[in-house]
């Protein structure tokens, strides 16, 4: 931090910790613009509602990764494990006869949360490369197990017979994707509010402390391990919910929901958007998926090339992701302090 910003902060600094947290938690006008913009596809691009619903689902998944990676410093290459657990749970409940979406969502979230809670005991104890490989290994094992248990999961072919009932008893999941997008967006918004509340709480502050300097935290009385377990479980629940929405809106679920590619893709999207900023995952998911869709449409065989170039460009010119770059710009233009 430069001396200018220091004095600016000092000048605007609230007197008490509570006031500080309050100031952080206030809604900035750019956030309101963002959420209003998410409604635009209904009007401007109704042909793209299906893509939008999948962006919303992925954004939710990226948000859950941001909670552990961006805010708590836990690098996971296997977060799709929880996404997959949620997806399969929602699918299985439907196949076994209960296709109501909202309750299915809750059950899926709980199931993913349980798996997350159990694994968090291991995850909390490791850092750096060991942590990355453990999360990766666990996810790969889970995928193998799902493939082996093809009497339960449908294996390679995917789970068949998933049918989602009408949302709230009235809205059918139509071919165009109106209900799908509305559903995904609504859930994303609600969970976003929850995540925002968590981050702007003393617990959230402690997490950021753990990310910055994990060794120091116990000195001020913060229980690192239990905090990490808590946020990891919460992130698992959210990832599970995202997976469930995918199953419910597409009425299909298969092994790639648990796959390495899904874990890697969401990590890339989060980095592109900018970690530790709550909106990074959302923006990253939107940019990456829309870019992929457009490149793939233009050049089905070689779109990898353009996406690769895009990633390299982003990393070279926007070192803190898109949001980092925007923040820098906004600071220069004195839009924010």
């Amino acid at each position: 931090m430069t001396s200018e910003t220091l004095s600016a902060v000092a000048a605007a600094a609230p007197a008490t910790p509570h006031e500080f947290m309050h100031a952080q938690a206030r809604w900035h006008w750019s956030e309101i613009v963002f959420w209003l913009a998410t409604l635009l596809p209904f009007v401007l691009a109704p042909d793209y509602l299906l893509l939008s619903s999948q962006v919303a689902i992925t954004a939710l998944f990226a948000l859950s990764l941001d909670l552990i990676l961006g805010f708590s410093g836990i690098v996971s290459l296997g977060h799709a494990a929880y996404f997959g657990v949620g997806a399969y749970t929602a699918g299985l409940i439907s196949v076994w006869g209960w296709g109501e979406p909202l309750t299915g969502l809750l059950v899926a979230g709980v199931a993913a949360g349980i798996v997350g809670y159990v694994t968090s005991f291991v995850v909390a104890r490791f850092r750096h490369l060991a942590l990355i490989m453990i999360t990766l290994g666990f996810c790969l094992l889970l995928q193998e197990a799902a493939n082996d248990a093809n009497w339960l999961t449908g294996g390679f072919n995917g789970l068949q017979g998933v049918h989602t009932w009408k949302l709230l008893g009235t809205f059918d999941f139509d071919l165009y994707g109106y209900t799908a997008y509305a559903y995904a967006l609504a859930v994303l918004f609600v969970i976003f509010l929850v995540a925002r509340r968590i981050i702007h709480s003393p617990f959230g502050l402690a997490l950021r402390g753990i990310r910055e300097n994990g060794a120091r935290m116990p000195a001020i009385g913060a229980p690192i391990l239990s905090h990490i377990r808590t946020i990891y479980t919460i992130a698992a629940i959210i990832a599970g919910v995202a997976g469930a929405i995918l199953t419910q809106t597409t009425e299909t679920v298969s092994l790639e929901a648990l796959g390495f590619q899904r874990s890697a893709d969401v990590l890339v999207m989060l980095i592109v958007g900018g970690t530790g900023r709550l909106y990074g995952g959302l923006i990253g998911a939107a940019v990456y998926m829309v870019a992929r869709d457009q490149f793939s449409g233009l050049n089905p065989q070689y779109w990898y090339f353009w996406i690769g170039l895009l990633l390299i460009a982003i990393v070279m010119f926007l070192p803190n992701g898109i949001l980092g770059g925007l923040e820098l710009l906004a600071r220069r233009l004195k839009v924010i302090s």
Partner: protein
Amino acid sequence: MQKLLCGLTGVALAFLGAGSASAQNSVKIGMINEYSGQFADTGAQIDHGVTLWMKQHGDTVAGKKIELIRKDTGGMFPDTAKRLAQEAIVRDHADILGAFSLTPNALAAADVSKQAKKLMVVMNAATSIITEKSPYIARTSSTTPQLNYTLGQWAAKNGIKTVYTMVSDYGPGIDAETWFQKGFKDNGGTIVGSVRFPIANPDFSSFVQAAKDKNPDAIYIWIPGGAQPAAIGKALAERGIDARKTKILGQDALASETALKSMGDISLGIISVSDYDYNHQSPMNKEFVKTYNDEFHRNPDFFSIGGYDGAHLIYAVLAKTGGKADGDALIAAAKGMSWESPRGPIMIDPETRDIVQTVYIRRVEKVGNELLNVEIAAVPNVKDPAHGAKK
């Protein structure tokens, strides 16, 4: 909020309505295919088959211009495949869905075909249940049971008494194992052992050793295409298994052109089952192979023929309905349709809408300087045993 949603929906529908009053003089085919990723080569061959047909027969049928809308799924991603199928219909106004190389993708898109009542032509995916998922699906490739049951049957009837089976541990592999064993056992054979290897398996030596230990008359192998056929060929050679003494039985991918090139002379004697090989000796096929080579500088394979015949089917049904592109008319026209393809005579079964064709048993032999699949038996009019004749 409810009112706002309704209002917005209304506006959106108005946009949609305006959009869909577009050219009724074209019939669009949404090709839901893999153009990138691991399965890109299969996707490319299917696409080549379709475009070759269109080049040879022009792009107009019954007064309608045929347009291809290519959508890349990137691999085994059923949710993407479903979305792309939906988008093809909703956004691009496709009348027909085609390609579908991978089973999970086909199964997911089947829902869309059923809901939107559009003809869906499966040009490669080989699992039997696909055609049962929507009444608008017709298949022009082959099914795993169709090929493998026939092989098992042939093996039992041709002096092979004991077989050890080795397959990849996922849907198609397990399917192949089930039906090969059934065909073999139904005709008096004995399975002395079986193993399933992990899907992405770079090294087969331990599995081959286990097979060798059992000393069977033949070893049946099912693996997906790509790197694996050559790898397993080498493993067999390294373990001293000579394909001319201990018979090696497999499906098409085991003896594909690339596999044979990589294996070299080790592959001599491998017996495989397929619906098509570029070495099929018929005048129609010779012509097909020549034009394919002129156009794409490579030989066609069983993926290409699925695409080629898929396009043939689409043109034929459109001609029969006089250009009407709605699902009901097209599928009704497709039922029972039969023709002579470069692979031999084929028919779309009127009851199951699946393919009925001649299945060939071939052996790898050296012809001149090349390693080719030479046909040693042909079983005509084979239906898919899973939903056709039995069950």
